[in-house]
């Protein structure tokens, strides 16, 4: 294609998901630039969500959302500084955010793995999670496998 790079396109009918594979002899600035461009394109494809703060409606980018959780019967989207009401069920929200770095950690909560600071394990055997906005929550033991798979998927471009 050019002296800079060769572009190879593989179309397979049974391919489950758009997969990008970057091949080079080292991880240099060109590789970083390509990864950034692909991420920017992918972020642009992620649908924005309608959030309500009081009476005002705000369009929320998925990247800014730290977590979704149930407060009674309401679904709340929390960013680093505010909480918005989402007028959808958690299941409907999950359909909008699937594959965009979010993972369900319990029956009533979905978190953005990019906003997780760390996991901890208490003496009583509960798995805690601290988020970048300071919020702390709990991960269900049944969901640990899903969390691990989501983290493994996010680090795939290292392999």
């Amino acid at each position, binding site marked *: 294609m050019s002296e800079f790079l060769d572009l190879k396109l593989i179309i397979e009918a049974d391919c489950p998901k758009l997969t990008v594979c970057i091949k080079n002899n080292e991880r240099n600035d060109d590789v*970083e630039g390509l*990864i*950034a461009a692909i*991420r*920017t394109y992918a972020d642009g494809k992620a649908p924005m969500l309608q959030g309500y703060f009081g009476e005002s409606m705000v369009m929320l980018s998925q*990247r800014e959302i730290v977590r979704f959780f149930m407060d009674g019967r309401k679904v709340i989207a929390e960013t680093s500084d505010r909480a918005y009401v989402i007028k959808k069920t958690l299941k409907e929200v999950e359909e909008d955010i699937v594959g965009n770095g979010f993972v369900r950690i*319990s*029956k009533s909560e979905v978190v953005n*793995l*990019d906003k*997780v600071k*760390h*996991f*901890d*394990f*208490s*003496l*009583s*055997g*509960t*798995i805690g999670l601290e988020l970048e906005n300071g919020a702390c929550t*709990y991960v*269900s*033991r*049944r969901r*640990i496998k899903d*969390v*691990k798979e989501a*983290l*493994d998927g*996010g*680090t795939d*471009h*290292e392999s």
Partner: protein
Amino acid sequence: MNLKEKFAFLFVTGFSIGLLIMVFVVSFVLSPEELAGEQSLLPMHFICSGLYGAICFSGTICYDIEKWSLLRATVTHFAVVFLSFLFVNGTLKWYPAEILLPVLAMMAAGYAFIWIIMYAVWKAKVENLNRELEKKRFLLKKTDYA
């Protein structure tokens, strides 16, 4: 399988195993004289053995309750199993009263051992998650142009 289905499955499995154990005891453990003395209560023995098995197995569902810590689930299961044992033994006199304290001690030791193993396993899983998270964060920093 949701929780209700899992509970039902465990209940039936536990009941079946309890019955099988009683079949084994009646066939190979009890002497003919002991069996003769228990003839009228035999159906009760079978039912209680089945129910005890059902309680032990289906009780493990408390480990699947999301909001419960590992400690709470373990203590609850231990309490349910031991109290059921006390009730069944008190009703059917499977064992003499003198062994109850040693049984309690052995069960407590067994559950403590299980707790230590589970704690170590889950702690290792959480440490692994933190390692994966660090790896992901390192990659994000390198590619974040926002």
